[in-house]
């Protein structure tokens, strides 16, 4: 049953990808990309990568759809006819890269293999020493906040800076202006504004 779900979801992904390439209407392509993200998110969930699925749903289906729509509102929503004819060289390059990537997966450990290196590189060490070193019962918290403390600190700084930058770019000033004006309006005519 689980294999059937995988196969069906992957088939959907392939169908959507081909549809996105074929469609000339860019708005429809953006909508399909949203569906693509939702599908990959459910695929990640089915494959037990819940955190990845979460990021995919938030970023892929949420933010990037909006960003794409914002781009479309600044440009046209029809694909230009410039690249309509097939490009054999590009096709060969893509096929070669794909073949190389598939070839590279043969070296990887099997899906869900408990003896894979990623499960034994440092994890065993952490599990053994976490009680003596830190004493926090939640292992994920202990690793994020202590073993990788500087890493987490840097990440939060980056995310905070990015958030502030995006807010400034998206016209935070205008929102403040609007709120201020609304407040002025309310104080003047007693809440009958809007």
């Amino acid at each position: 049953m689980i294999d059937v779900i995988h196969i069906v979801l992957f088939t959907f992904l392939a169908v959507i990808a081909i549809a996105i390439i074929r469609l000339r209407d860019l708005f429809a392509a953006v909508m399909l990309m949203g569906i693509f993200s939702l599908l990959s998110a459910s695929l990640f969930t089915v494959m037990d990568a819940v955190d990845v699925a979460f990021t995919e749903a938030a970023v892929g289906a949420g933010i990037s759809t909006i960003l794409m729509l914002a781009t479309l509102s600044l440009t046209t929503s029809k694909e230009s006819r410039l690249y309509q004819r097939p490009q054999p060289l590009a096709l060969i390059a893509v096929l070669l890269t794909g073949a190389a990537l598939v070839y590279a997966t043969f070296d990887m450990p099997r899906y869900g293999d408990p003896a894979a290196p990623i499960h034994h590189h440092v994890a065993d060490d952490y599990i053994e020493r976490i009680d003596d070193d830190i004493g926090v019962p939640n292992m994920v918290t202990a690793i994020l906040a202590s073993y990788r403390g500087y890493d987490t600190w840097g990440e939060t700084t980056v995310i905070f800076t990015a958030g502030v930058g995006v807010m400034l770019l998206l016209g935070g000033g205008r929102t403040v202006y609007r709120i201020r004006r609304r407040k002025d309006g309310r104080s003047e005519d007693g809440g009958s504004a809007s």
Partner: protein
Amino acid sequence: MIDQFGVATAALLVCMAMTLIRSIAGPTVFDRILAVNSFGTKTVLLIAVYGFLSGRPDFLDLALVYALMNFIGTIAVMKFTRFGDLAGMEEDEEEIL
């Protein structure tokens, strides 16, 4: 091992396929927006049912958050198609109405 959850999953996958067809074929913008929203709902349901299918209902939390995100995303897309701007000002709204 086809139990009721397996049947529900299969039905959901069929629904997803039909939504997919509508989103690819859909002639108007609103067909597609509705298709995306409905597909998001199907994703939520699929995750919820899959949790029970694999015997780990703790995926339900994830499904709830997906539902919230789907709602906000659809609101944002609708607002965008209507006003062409996410920080749509109130006077713009009055003009269009």
